[in-house]
């Protein structure tokens, strides 16, 4: 279980069961393209969060001219980094780097694993 505390302090903390909740329909075609491209840049079985962020940023820049990634919020272990437009971001979790859907600074749901 990943304990997530968002930037919105009034929201307190939210618990997510990262391995069982999946909503692939929340990903747009652009999101899927970027995520697949970023995953292709990661070949190690164990990926450090910094490497995942670098791969995601490169994938965004290669897919979108002028594309940027942002800090969408934070968890007890570190930041959520991703797109402010789509709200899809990644976070370092105990079981590996995880995909989340964040809106208005609040984690709405887990979208499964980003990297092992």
């Amino acid at each position, binding site marked *: 279980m990943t304990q997530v505390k968002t*930037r919105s302090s009034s929201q307190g903390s939210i618990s997510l069961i990262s391995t069982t909740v999946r909503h692939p329909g929340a990903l747009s075609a652009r999101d899927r393209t970027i995520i697949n491209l970023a995953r292709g840049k990661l070949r190690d079985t164990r990926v450090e969060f910094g490497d995942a962020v670098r791969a995601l*940023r490169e994938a965004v820049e290669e897919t*979108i*001219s*002028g594309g*940027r990634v*942002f800090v969408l919020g934070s968890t007890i272990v570190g930041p959520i980094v991703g797109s402010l437009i789509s709200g899809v971001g990644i976070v370092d979790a105990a079981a590996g780097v995880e995909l989340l859907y964040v*809106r208005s600074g*609040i984690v709405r749901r887990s979208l499964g694993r980003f990297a092992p």
Partner: protein
Amino acid sequence: MRGTLEIDLHDPTLTPPIRSIIENWAEVDWFAPSGITDEEGARLFREHHESARRNAAAHLAANVEVRSAIGGWGEFVTWCTRVRRPSAWDWKYSVLKPMSTAHSKALGWTANALPQASPLILRVGEAGKEVVIWRGLYPNVGELPGEPVGECASFYLGYAHSDLVGCIEWQLAENHDDLSSNPYVPLIRCYGSGFYPFCLDAATVVMFRFAADEDALPRARLVSH
């Protein structure tokens, strides 16, 4: 409603023009009725358009048709839906984002140039292999109303926020205090004046503003949670 921002405007690494841009952004009263006329709103957009054309002439028409629209959340959702269709021309991806990147590249500026302690960025990863990420200044306006209003409002805030980052990056790359040639500054003023541009193509923009009629604009739903 004014969003809360997670930044200390007194941070010593913020230069006066950057502080000024962020202050104007913080003052935006999101989704509130405008306090200026349609003509003044149109003038602000034309100011942006002319400035942007000086930097991205190939992507923007010489003359832009500015249309006015007024309404409540229903109309706002309709305009958001229209510009988000997969076949629609995308103003941000077609013009504004590439323009910002091209400008920074031409001036040799990257976010790596920001001070280590800058509140605008976060450095992720091991020392020596750090990745610099924009923290962003997304306005936290609290819990937005139910769908599709909340999702559309969130979409628009995200797109407007990309203009803010473009504005900041432009000025950092310019490395001077004069904001007059920054094409994103008039856009931030549009938002601050209660006008929400929806660009339909390179030559047509709809300047939407919320009606002052409280029945048409259920603001109470936005602030109650």
